[in-house]
């Protein structure tokens, strides 16, 4: 018994040492690129990484620890690239000597659970969405909603508002949009990865919000486009800044990406919500990659750049399959010239 008591912790220690040594050893190989950050981009990034490795490219090891973690790790130099859903401002980038560029676009969709209501039949405007999330418009048969939706029967029940409980880029883009279209939202809860929600319940992750919306009758929530497709949820049309009501779809997200003013955005510091195009969907989310301008390990940095070039040029199909929207060709060109001038 005595011997066992001593032997067990010793064995555990040995195992721990070994695994540490293993990690250090493999990180030392120049072919492996490590990245960390946004959970939003994880599915497509890991699919790209698998494809890239099959083609004989470097091994990409991406940890989806959240945008905040990705930013701090790339600033600390512990990873070769970071990924964030909220772009950094140019002065912040300059201070940490980082380069920034977008890789993929997705949409954020208002989803509802009103008995008898079909997908795409409900029309909402940005200011109305802000008022519902602020708790000012409480009931589904509110005159403002009724005026937008003639011929749609809506219950007299209260809107069960659902938002994210965890900090997330999805929330950042959603609240950024609300703040743009509603002055009271801007001065009230404001924009951020977590805000002080005036009302509603919080679900953890997109899957949590999707589950709450499906569970609660008369619920309204916001989730990423992929969840709408995969769970066959009832989505609402949104009015864009050109006045058109648009359904969320790959086409309307692309329209937003094309109409956004990327040319004049220094370091691609642009949040694409409320894009001006005629058919542009108003709430889109973009994931940005952060890389050091003067990397410590040139070989790894080059491997990462080669990977992202490959993904931007050849990864469109994979992205579409996973319900993301690839970047427009003009933007990809702009990114490639940005990388070649900025990352040494």
């Amino acid at each position, binding site marked *: 018994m*005595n011997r066992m*008591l*001593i032997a067990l912790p010793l064995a555990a220690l040995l195992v721990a040492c070994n695994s540490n040594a293993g990690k250090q050893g493999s990180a030392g190989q120049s072919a492996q690129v490590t990245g960390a950050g946004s*959970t939003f981009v994880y599915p497509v990034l890991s699919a790209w990484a698998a494809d890239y490795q099959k083609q004989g490219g470097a091994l990409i090891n991406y940890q989806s*620890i*959240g*945008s*905040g*973690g990705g*930013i*701090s790790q790339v600033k600390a130099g512990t990873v070769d690239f970071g990924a964030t859903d909220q772009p950094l401002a140019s002065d912040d980038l300059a201070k940490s000597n980082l380069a920034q560029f977008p890789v993929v676009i997705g949409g954020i969709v208002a989803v509802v659970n009103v008995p008898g209501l079909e997908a795409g039949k409900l029309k909402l405007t940005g200011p109305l969405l802000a008022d519902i999330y602020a708790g000012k418009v409480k009931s589904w048969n509110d005159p403002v909603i009724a005026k937008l939706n003639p011929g749609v029967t809506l219950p007299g029940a*209260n809107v*069960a508002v659902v938002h994210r*409980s*965890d*900090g*997330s880029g999805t929330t950042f883009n959603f609240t950024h949009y609300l703040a743009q279209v509603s002055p009271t939202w801007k001065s009230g*809860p*404001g*924009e*951020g*990865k*977590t*805000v*002080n*929600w005036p*009302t*509603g*319940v*919080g*679900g*953890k992750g997109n899957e*949590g919000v999707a*589950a*709450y919306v499906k*569970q*609660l009758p008369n619920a309204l929530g916001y989730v990423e486009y992929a969840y709408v497709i995969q769970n066959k949820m009832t989505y609402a049309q949104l009015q864009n800044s050109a006045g058109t009501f648009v359904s969320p779809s790959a086409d309307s997200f692309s329209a937003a990406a094309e109409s956004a003013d990327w040319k004049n955005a220094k370091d691609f510091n642009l949040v694409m919500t409320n894009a001006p195009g005629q058919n542009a969907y108003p709430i889109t989310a973009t994931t940005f990659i952060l890389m050091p301008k003067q990397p410590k390990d040139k070989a790894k940095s080059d491997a990462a750049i080669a990977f992202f070039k490959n993904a931007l040029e050849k990864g469109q199909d994979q992205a579409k399959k996973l319900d993301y929207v690839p970047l427009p060709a003009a933007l990809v060109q702009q990114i490639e010239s940005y990388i070649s001038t900025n990352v040494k």
Partner: protein
Amino acid sequence: MNASLADTADLVPPMRKSGVGADRAFQWITAGAAWLVLLLLGGVAVAMAWGGRLAFQTFGWGFVTGKDWDVVAGKFGAFVPIYGTLVTSAIALIIAVPVSIGIALFLTDIAPRWSRGPIAIAIELLAAIPSIIYGMWGLFIFAPFMAAHVEPWLGNHLGNKMLIGPLFSGPPIGIGMLTAGIVLGIMVIPFIASVAREVFSAVPAPLKESAVALGSTRWEILSRVTLPYTRSAVIGAVFLGLGRALGETMAVTFVLGNAHDLSASLLMPSNSIAAAIANEFTEADTDLYRSSLIALGFLLFVVTFIVLTIAKLLLLRLNRQFGRTN
């Protein structure tokens, strides 16, 4: 336990020189193990207080009493999560304690002998279910049931009563403090029930037999013999369960609603300390935000410590009142 001690006593050979050394080494090892726990506990407390110092410096006592949790404005107050943690744990205990004692009593005194083993094992298996499973069950099955059947009834029958009315008013959405408390209650039942069963079966048979001989009913045996005899162990079990309820994270996150709103109604969503940390840590990207979350962890530590201290004091008082210690 007693038997195994006696066995080892028989096995110990007459003292040899090397035996003395080994014995002393063993003593050191066990002492080290015990002190290590204290050291770790102290270390964790200090580390969390240090990590949360920015929040405590910035807000002072306002961090404990503040009701705002506004990340955008950088204002953090822990009152809502503390309140949510205490209320859900209290609901859990109100449900779990009577049920657990009932289970334990049934298994030791009332159940047919053949059924005791299977039921006891089933209860202990409940403790082995991972908390995330309770959370998913709570969200997908229990919350809709509460929303459709229990909460409308509560709202209609109790929502308009004096005093307790505000506790049961509000829309029946199925997600909130009451649902979280009930799920927590189910989660802590096995902890309390299995300890209570152990100690109930350790009550000497002659004591109970004498009570029966005096014409006691089953209730009288429980309240006058079994519970007083096992009081400290049962209270210990209750606080083991309470400790688990206070710190439970995943299951609560799923069904509590995670909203930093203060509401008297048990049907409304709230937040708990552990759930807030689990939800928000990944994207806490300012120093103050991160520090506030670590400070929340420290407060959970403090809350648990205070609750356990009160329990110990209560036990001491009870023992003095009844003039015995065990």
